[in-house]
């Protein structure tokens, strides 16, 4: 996917004044986070399970070459094929080769962020193969010509009325009829529209939440059942996965599953956890005749050896963005690439480069909620801080920002000047706010005072108070 992350600031500003988006985000801000905290409260072992999940993933990453080789050999023993791909181009070409070998015209897809990462849909379209997204949220954004704004709720930025307009417009040539008003009608219409697409598809593509080394099994976690219809109806099942999805055993997977759905949607368990091992067996009445796993690196091996290794523990639950005040204010599209929110702020510069994505690690108040709720205990604010340091070293910020920082750095290293200038500033602010006790507009911080007042200072600086207190 083409990144627009460099345009973050303008996109964020646009998001803030988009009424439909703000309407949708208003619902979003309390939805998942409340459900998560309720689910966590119901499971006394939750924190201990997080620790164990972290330990499993750290162990796996430390021995990732071993576990991936074992996974691949087990897939092959069960009759599947593993394709090791270094770049998105490799992965796309491999998918296309498989589709062509099976003479495929249509491909059903269940939700895969890797599919977004490698921009599979436009590539297939340009090669005369029709990709059909089947997750409801993905279907909505595909119809709208957009891309997901959230990793587990792709259409969370849309209101029901927007979906109703979209369905009316895009379904009317297919016998869609009148504009529908209710959520259940819209869901039913999508179900009806996609039904024959599932049945007619030549190839089904899913992602993977886990690659189990013990058995050569790929696992997906879904709620709709589209991932299952995608893989059991067509002749070919292709799994897209990046390297860090490996886990050693089914037991290890179970531990991570116990924190995954609870962290993501606040469900005790997702509706469908589906384990797939090879193609259909002799005598089976359904299931795919061919099973392919695309194992994509795309920067993961490099990240493994970098200071960002810990982000490879990510299980893509979305909890960090569900709890992020910045994401909750601007929505996912502002971030400009596949992964929004705090994890996106760490991942995106790794995957599209710091120069393109250097704004993202700054899109955080460092309130720390993302790290608090991350089931894999990824130190997201700490990792964003590392990107900020690299951004500074690379001189990527605006000159005004760098000047401000340099001024501040000089001041805090010169106590006398600091005290003097803060005393002047306090006096000036007190004058500004003398009449009402608060300041409605600051000359150099209009953006900040646009949405709030600043209280006028009372008394002196902290330094001055401390001195008086020590003397007393």
């Amino acid at each position, binding site marked *: 996917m083409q990144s627009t992350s460099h345009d973050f600031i303008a996109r964020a500003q646009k998001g803030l004044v988009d009424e439909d988006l703000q309407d949708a985000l208003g*619902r979003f801000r309390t939805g998942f986070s409340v459900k998560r905290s309720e689910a966590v409260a119901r499971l*006394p072992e939750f924190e201990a399970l997080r620790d164990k999940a972290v330990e499993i993933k750290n162990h796996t990453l430390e*021995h*990732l*070459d*071993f*576990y*991936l*080789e074992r996974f691949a050999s*087990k897939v*092959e023993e069960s009759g599947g094929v*593993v394709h*090791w*791909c*270094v*770049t998105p181009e*490799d992965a796309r*070409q*491999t998918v296309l080769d498989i589709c062509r070998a099976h003479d495929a015209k249509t491909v059903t897809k269940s939700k895969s962020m890797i599919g977004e990462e490698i921009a599979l849909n436009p590539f297939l379209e340009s090669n005369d193969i029709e990709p059909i997204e*089947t997750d*409801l949220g993905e279907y909505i954004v595909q119809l709208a010509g957009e891309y997901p704004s959230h990793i587990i*709720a*792709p*259409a969370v930025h849309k209101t029901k009325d927007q979906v109703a307009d979209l369905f009316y417009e895009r379904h009317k040539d297919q016998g869609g009829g009148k504009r529908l008003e209710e*959520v259940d009608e*819209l*869901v*039913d219409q999508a*179900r009806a529209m996609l039904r024959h697409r599932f049945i007619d598809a030549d190839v089904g593509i899913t992602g993977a939440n886990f690659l189990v080394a013990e*058995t*050569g*099994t790929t696992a997906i976690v879904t*709620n*709709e*059942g*589209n991932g*299952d*219809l995608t893989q059991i*109806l067509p002749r070919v099942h292709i799994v897209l996965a990046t*390297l860090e999805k490996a886990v*050693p*055993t089914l*037991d290890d997977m*179970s531990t991570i599953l116990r924190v995954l759905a609870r962290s993501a949607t606040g469900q*005790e*368990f997702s*509706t469908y*956890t*589906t*384990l797939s091992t*090879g193609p259909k*067996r002799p*005598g*089976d*009445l*359904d299931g795919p005749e061919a099973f392919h796993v695309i*194992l994509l690196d795309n920067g993961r*091996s490099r990240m*493994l*050896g970098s200071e960002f290794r810990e982000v490879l523990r990510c299980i893509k639950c979305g909890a960090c963005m569900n709890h992020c005040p910045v994401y909750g204010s601007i929505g996912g599209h502002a971030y400009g690439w596949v992964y929004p929110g705090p994890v996106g702020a760490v991942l995106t510069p790794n995957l599209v480069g710091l120069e393109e994505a250097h704004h993202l690690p700054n899109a955080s108040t460092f309130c720390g909620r993302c790290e608090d709720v991350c089931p894999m205990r990824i130190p997201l604010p700490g990792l964003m801080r590392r990107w900020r340091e690299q951004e500074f070293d690379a001189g990527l910020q605006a000159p005004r920002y760098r000047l401000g920082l340099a001024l501040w750095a000089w001041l805090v290293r010169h106590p006398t000047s600091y005290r003097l200038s803060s005393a002047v500033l306090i006096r000036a602010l007190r004058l500004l706010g003398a009449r009402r006790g608060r300041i409605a507009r600051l000359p150099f911080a209009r953006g900040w005072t646009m949405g709030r007042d600043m209280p006028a200072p009372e008394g002196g600086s902290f330094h001055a108070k401390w001195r008086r207190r020590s003397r007393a």
Partner: protein
Amino acid sequence: MSGNTTENEANGSGNGRERVLGALRSSLGREELPAAVRAELTARLSSPKSNLIPARGDGSPADQVALFTEMAEAVQASVVRVPDDADVPNAVTLYLAQNNLPSDMVMAPDAELNRYPWATRPMLNMRRGHAVDTDQVSVTGADMAFAETGTLMLTSDATRPSTLNFLPENHIVVLRAEQITGAYEEGWRRLRANGEDGAFMPRTVNLITGPSRTGDIEQRLQLGAHGPRRLHIIIVEQ
């Protein structure tokens, strides 16, 4: 190390496997793991240990049936308990009547389901096989069920096609009380008994927790997104 496997030639990037493994090892600051470590990790895989299992699934078989029922109902499955095999066809008939469903059904050719006296209900019109688009009601058994989250485990084979679990709008599962256990790990233990060294997995293992759902429009829960709208579980107590 095996260098030239056929699958690498398919991906157009030369030897993808060696390039990826080489990059991983270079990032990990080492060569391929020494034999002793490989043996240790292989042992971890061939005799897998359970990790922490939540205590909620512990308890007597009766507790587990009760917890399973509570958890499954909490995710909008319907659950009935019948005393023995003879009551199963009645329970199916009753369910179809209550939901205004036709008596045409597709049932897994699973021999386990032959123990129920279907002939006592001649009005039930059953086809045995995999599901097709027009099927409205399917009947299957299950391998096991986990009380922890009200989850069913269904595996595929020649007599248990997976389409039955997803294509029809109504999925009826006949479960025996003794198949209900506490946690998922018991399911893996049972599967492992079917083969050695990781070669025991059926093509598809479905862990199913309630009927299909989506919250993709304004986070409003809607059942029956693409899979079954209704999941009905008949527990045979015996």
